[in-house]
């Protein structure tokens, strides 16, 4: 078993769709929180296969997309300092901030390096002892433990020139913030599979308990997603709301305790600034008091101008599920993957990029 192809069987998919069509009797709105789910749903044509009464909305689960311009501007300002190397995941390079991007900063002479892993960033720090390496820490709970582990390794191995800008975001608090906005009237949420591999399924319990909304954690293969929709439909039709896991091969209810331990050793919850939503208390991870020496803000001083948004870009509303890319006047017009205006068109998992690549039939 490879744990991928087995969950792409079209025959089983058709049967699941038949069951969903049979069981789902009312108009419902489901949100897939995760950008990876959005991409998988479009790639496999799942929106077109589902019955018309099931409306799928895309959520804010793309870390690149939700990073606010003020935070991007801050990162770009670090990139303009002498003797600083910025190490970043590739997704961030082309994201436009208010006035520039990391790509433009690189063209202007900044030393910006794309890495696959924090392990690569640590190696750059070891290889360049005369320079300061600042890793751009973006991501949800899936990614934060790996970045926390890099800080612990840097401490263990006494790597003095390694820093992390922590722009990490937390999933349950932003789900709550979106539900509290009350803009979209959701009936069910597809919870992110790999965030949940870390945090488990318990942190979503407030969703059925406090909001009467169905909740299923699922994976990223087409049968995983269809099984998730099937389980959500059953909860909604019976009115028995709970948190279920359709991705049990990768997610335990209690999550990954070792990863949570490493993450909470280094980080603590703090306010985070979300594009389109604003500052949400306790929705981000900050470096805690024991590891402050790794925070570049304690070691370098940068000045940024007040942030501004690209005129006409509706990424913020798209991230809240209030608008779709098709509602944006810039989409496929002046905003394309080759020349993106907003971050939702830059990231491979951004809603705009996904609609652009796979959404011809919508």
């Amino acid at each position: 078993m490879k744990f991928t192809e087995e969950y792409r069987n079209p025959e089983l998919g058709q049967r699941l769709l038949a069951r969903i069509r049979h069981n789902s009797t009312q108009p419902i709105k489901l949100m897939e929180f995760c950008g990876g789910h959005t991409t998988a749903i479009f790639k496999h044509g799942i929106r077109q296969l589902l019955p018309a009464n099931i409306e799928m909305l895309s959520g804010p689960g793309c870390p690149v997309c939700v990073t606010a311009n003020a935070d991007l501007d801050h990162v770009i300002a670090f990139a303009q300092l002498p003797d600083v190397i910025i190490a970043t995941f590739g997704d961030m390079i082309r994201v436009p901030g208010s006035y520039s991007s990391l790509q433009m900063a690189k063209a202007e002479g900044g030393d910006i390096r794309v890495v696959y892993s924090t392990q690569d960033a640590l190696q750059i720090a070891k290889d360049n002892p005369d320079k300061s390496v600042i890793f751009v820490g973006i991501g949800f709970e899936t990614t934060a433990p790996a970045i926390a582990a890099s800080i612990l390794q840097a401490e263990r191995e006494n790597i003095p020139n390694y820093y992390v800008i922590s722009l990490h975001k937390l999933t349950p608090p932003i789900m709550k913030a979106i539900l509290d906005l009350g803009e979209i009237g959701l009936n069910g949420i597809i919870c992110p599979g790999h965030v949940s591999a870390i945090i488990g399924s318990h942190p979503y319990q407030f969703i059925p308990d406090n909001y009467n909304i169905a909740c299923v954690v699922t994976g990223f293969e087409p049968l995983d997603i269809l099984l998730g929709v099937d389980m959500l439909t059953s909860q909604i039709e019976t009115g028995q709301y709970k948190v279920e896991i359709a991705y049990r091969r990768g997610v335990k209810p209690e999550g990954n305790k070792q990863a949570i331990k490493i993450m909470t050793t280094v980080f603590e919850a703090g306010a985070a600034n979300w594009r389109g939503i604003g500052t949400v208390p306790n929705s981000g991870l900050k470096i805690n008091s024991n590891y402050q020496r790794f925070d570049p803000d304690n070691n370098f001083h940068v000045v940024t101008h007040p942030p501004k948004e690209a005129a006409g870009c509706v990424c913020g509303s798209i991230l809240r599920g209030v608008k779709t890319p098709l509602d944006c006047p810039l989409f496929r017009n002046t905003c394309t993957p080759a020349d993106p205006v907003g971050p939702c068109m830059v990231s491979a998992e951004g809603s705009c990029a996904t609609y652009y690549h796979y959404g011809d039939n919508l």
Partner: protein
Amino acid sequence: MCLAIPAMVKSIEGKQAVIDIDGVTRQVSLELTPEAKVGDYVLLHTGFAISIIDPEEAEETLRLLREISEVY
């Protein structure tokens, strides 16, 4: 961004492992899954194994899917 793919653990040395994805090998960290063993499949994300795939649960999900398909 939260992409994670199944990979098989081929060998382990300390907290590092060599994994295999369809014949491609790479060194990854087992800091987040220290209980991983050679032969296990893990979910690989940014150079770290973030979860050990449970083969029994994987089979149970497939059994459930087949059971559904017998009715619909």
